[in-house]
């Protein structure tokens, strides 16, 4: 999980570095007054590498898929849900005598 996050951050840093290289390349093109037809080849390689790393991070960081079958192994219901339908208040505890001078035990 942390590894995926680190790879994602690394991919974004590579993209920023590629952006900075392209800005410098455009500055160079302005000096020589040529047209911008596309970033240089190594910037394209850098961008595809950054894209691959970010794609890997985007698929692994958010978490695993959980099965939605109600009868699969990891979806077993092992405790009753805590809603009022399952709480019983009408039990035999009411026949115990109420002690009026109870003190808190330390």
């Amino acid at each position, binding site marked *: 999980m942390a590894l995926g996050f680190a790879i994602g951050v690394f991919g974004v840093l590579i993209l920023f570095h590629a952006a900075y290289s392209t800005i410098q390349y455009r500055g160079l093109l302005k000096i020589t007054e040529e047209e911008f037809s596309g970033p240089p080849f190594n910037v394209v390689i850098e961008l595809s590498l950054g894209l691959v790393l970010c794609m890997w991070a985007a698929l692994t960081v958010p978490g695993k898929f959980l099965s939605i079958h*109600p009868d699969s192994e990891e979806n077993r219901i092992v405790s009753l849900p805590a809603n009022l339908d399952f709480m019983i208040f009408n039990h035999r505890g009411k026949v115990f005598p109420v002690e009026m001078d109870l003190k808190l035990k330390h």
Partner: protein
Amino acid sequence: MVHSESGSEEKKSSNAVNDLLTFNAENMQNNMKIIYYSRTFLSIIGGVVAGILGFTGLKGFVFYLLLMAVTSVGLVAKAKFSTQTYFDSWNRVLLDGFLGGLMSFVLFWTFAYDIVHIF
């Protein structure tokens, strides 16, 4: 005896065509959230890449379509190619978050294009 009855009931409720009538909704929501996060993040990254590469007009949208197609393949691979176990229909895996991602893509595309090519 009770176990076999409940087992056959749940089998009756799942037809052949991705149509689970009873499923675990909380896990379904978790899976949808994962798809949404993945697509949004990749739309933003794709927007930045399209801006840096200097795509204008139709080329950028074609790039976005390609990116979303690769993302769909990646998500189906993450679900180990059996989307029935994790989702209730194909459309959710392939098309959910497509339009929301498109808007994030265009936003970051214009943003990156301005920073890299205009200033």
